[in-house]
């Protein structure tokens, strides 16, 4: 086990625990629970095996669902987002440019912001669509998605800026 795998594994465990025991209990303004665990899916290296990544995304959501006694919404959202990540990367960083090896190592700030925004919005949209699962709650889904995505984005930016990019 090399150090990168170890770090990845450690961040997986830590993020799941943080998400379940801290961020899922926050209830900001009554109903906003920011989702920090998206950070793991963002930071996972871009040049790794995509199949393994889909499986890890599935496991991440699955553990959070299991431990926080919710349905399968986290599982479906994080699984779908890990499946769609290459498409988001291609759209955010451009097809012609050389693809970055990981999120943190890339210097282009605007591209990174676009990537982060789309990634988190898509994840939250899928999550809330699965949670409400009804056409009647359309406006409610949009409202929850935008508000929670804002706080998640804020948290992800703050937390990732605390740690220096690994070389």
């Amino acid at each position, binding site marked *: 086990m090399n150090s990168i795998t170890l770090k990845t594994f450690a961040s997986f465990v830590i993020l799941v625990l943080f998400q379940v025991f801290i961020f899922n209990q926050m209830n900001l303004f009554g109903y906003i629970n920011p989702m920090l665990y998206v950070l793991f899916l963002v930071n996972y290296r871009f040049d790794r095996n995509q*199949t393994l990544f*889909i499986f890890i995304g599935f496991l991440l959501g699955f553990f959070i669902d299991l431990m926080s006694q919710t349905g399968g919404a986290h599982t*479906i959202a994080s699984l779908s987002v890990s499946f769609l990540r290459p498409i988001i990367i291609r759209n955010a960083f451009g097809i012609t440019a050389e693809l970055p090896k990981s999120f943190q190592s890339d210097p282009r700030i605007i591209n990174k912001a676009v990537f982060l925004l789309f990634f988190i919005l898509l994840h939250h949209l899928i999550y809330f669509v*699965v949670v409400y699962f009804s056409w009647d709650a359309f406006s409610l889904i949009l409202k929850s998605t935008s508000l929670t995505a804002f706080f998640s984005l804020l948290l992800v930016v703050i937390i990732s800026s605390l740690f220096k990019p690994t070389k």
Partner: protein
Amino acid sequence: MQRIINALVQFRNPILYFFLLGFSLLFLSSRSSFHQNKIGELGFYFSSGLYKFSNSINQYFDLKEKNRILHQENTQLKALALKKNAPFLYDPYLGNPKRFPFKIRNVNVIKNSLLNQRNYIIIDKGTEDGVQTEVGVITSNGVLGIVKSVSKKYASVISILHQDLKINVRFKHSNAFGSLVWKGKGPTEFSVEDIVSSAQLQLGDTIVTGGMSSYFPYGIPLGTITHIENDSNSGYYIMTAELFENPSQVYAAYVIENKFKGEIDFLNKEAKP
């Protein structure tokens, strides 16, 4: 085999994704009864569409039987409707005042024609089903003809499209009566004869059967007047009427049999010198 494995390897990401998605949907529905209901509703939405489709196909194959049942039901309703039309003979306090001695059977037309000047129709019931000669045949919107001869399973009918057949008619809003004759033009174009010009009539008046003959009860609607001409020489109207229904395109019909026809015929014979 190699190709299948290659395809599996090539599409391993979508395959894995959809497999895990299916698993998480199962997980979702097992953990949350709300989502279980919602997913069930979705399945019901699709399956109900399928059921509707298969039902419409099944109904199509049932149509013949359904038609038979409807025809039978219509026969009973027809009898009730005609009975309601029958004129009051005496005050209703004295019991059922309407005399309606008619019996109705449903038949199907199996051969029809309109090209001759004297047309005949064949229907699919005969003596075995109780059809006799000299009884009337009506349709849902008019009169078809009079039974001429009967075999065991079939009967031939003098069509209303026959130049020698005269049908006793009267008007819905006037008591003037006359007879309806086909002149060999269009299949719905008839002339109405023997109506005295003192009667008050208008274009568009409805013609109904008169009830004077023993064949048809009073009040079967036949058609409307499309042309009136007052012929001052003869003292009779010259009139054209348009039938509600084209008699050459009828499939379902009813044989209407007067139980007292023998008595009436006997009296008619006696009255003649």
